[in-house]
């Protein structure tokens, strides 16, 4: 990663405190253009909270989140505007069940006045072509499989032309046989140069696609390395133990 490039997203000493737990404990991290950052760790380690703080789905209790040159958790920031540039893919897809696949994809760009309906439709078809689901354009989410839903959720986020995509355990709610098709789409995005932050349990994906892997435990960022070192020579005992269990 070139050092001159400016990070797209930057978390500075993030703290997220719930009444009984410290979900994030001073987590700092930068995500640079074209990077794929995978975040792994045991459940309850704060990795979902962390990624959800990056677009303020969860409000951090302390610290700063920066999108390029703008501190987005500062007072007076129009967070809706910022979120137009930060896509998010959820564990449970969260497609809009009352809208067709096509409308799921075109709703936000047209409602926000970024594209005309014709442009949005044309782009939706292109995007659907890319994931091989063109024929599902007029279907409703309820008629799709989990893997298809998640691929469409990815495309829905892409339709906003985001500068970075956040994935919060995108394959955790899927049947095992459908994990592959979703990871395939994500690999394609990575190859095309999309900047991504991915919370995942798919170590194979992290090893193959990530430019950097982060290990979190008990709300802390414990270790951070390119995949080769991360999986090859883990430093901390906690990561060694974790890897020995999941690999």
């Amino acid at each position: 990663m070139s050092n001159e490039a400016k990070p797209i997203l930057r978390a500075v000493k993030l703290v997220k405190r719930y009444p009984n737990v410290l979900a994030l404990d001073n987590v700092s991290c930068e995500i640079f253009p074209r990077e794929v950052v995978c975040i792994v760790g045991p459940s309850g380690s704060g990795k979902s909270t962390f990624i959800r703080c990056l677009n303020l789905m969860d409000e951090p209790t302390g610290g700063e989140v920066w999108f390029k040159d703008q501190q987005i958790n500062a007072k007076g920031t129009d967070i809706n505007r910022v979120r137009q540039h930060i896509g998010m893919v959820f564990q449970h897809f969260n497609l809009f069940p009352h809208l067709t696949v096509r409308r799921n994809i075109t709703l936000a760009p047209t409602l926000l006045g970024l594209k005309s309906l014709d442009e949005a439709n044309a782009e939706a078809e292109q995007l659907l072509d890319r994931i091989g689901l063109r024929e599902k354009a007029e279907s409703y989410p309820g008629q799709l499989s989990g893997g298809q839903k998640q691929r469409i959720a990815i495309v829905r986020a892409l339709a906003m032309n985001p500068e970075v995509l956040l994935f919060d355990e995108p394959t955790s709610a899927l049947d095992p046989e459908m994990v592959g098709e979703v990871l395939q789409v994500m690999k394609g995005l990575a190859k095309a140069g999309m900047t991504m932050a991915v919370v995942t349990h798919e170590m194979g994906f992290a090893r193959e696609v990530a430019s950097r892997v982060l290990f979190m435990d008990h709300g802390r960022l414990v270790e951070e390395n390119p995949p080769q070192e991360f999986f090859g020579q883990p430093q901390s005992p906690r990561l060694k133990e974790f890897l020995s269990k999941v690999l």
Partner: protein
Amino acid sequence: MHEALEWWRNAWLVFEAKFSQNFLEANRWRLLANGFVTTVEITIGAVLVGLAIGFLVAVIRTTHDKTGRLKFLNFLAKVFLTVIRGTPTMVQLLIIYFVIFASINVDKLLVAVIAFGINSGAYTAEIIRAGLMAVDKGQYEAGASLGLNYYQTMTRIIVPQAFKTILPALGNELIVLLKETSISGYIAMHDLTKGGDIIRSQTYDAFMPLLAVAAIYLICVCGLSWCVTRMERRLKRNE
């Protein structure tokens, strides 16, 4: 055999005579017809007022529950719900007519629409709120993550889904409201029930007019139920 036939004949003749006395003589059926029109007018007006109030109160309450904003409005909404749901509809109707509008000359139909509308609004509010709260949290998040603001997320994503869930309950509320308007005779309105009652006072026959009134309500309610079921089925088709 012969006696039984004779009995039925007599029964029919009595029925015929009573029918013509209660409904045909002096055009008494018009009392029912005009009363029915009034009942429908009150119901439609009150439904619209009730939906407007209900929606407003529900959005205030839901927004407060989800975001913590609108504290004062939420307090007012809670007081409103407590008072309206805690007192009988008839007392509310009488208060609005004899106290609030006592010194103003105002159309009674308007009074009834306001009274029943406010009352229905309180119940509708809780129905709509339940519907809004029942929509998965992920739907709000998906809307927000795409950069939609709260209002856009509400109108395009949450409300359409909530509508589907609450339709049966809303239909039920409409049916309750239609029947509840039967007390509007207490502010001297000539609604359907009052129409039947006037016939009774003229003919001294309770059976015919009251059964006719009951039958008309029943037919209306069955019709409404049928419409609601059809709408539900149409909305379900998209799932």
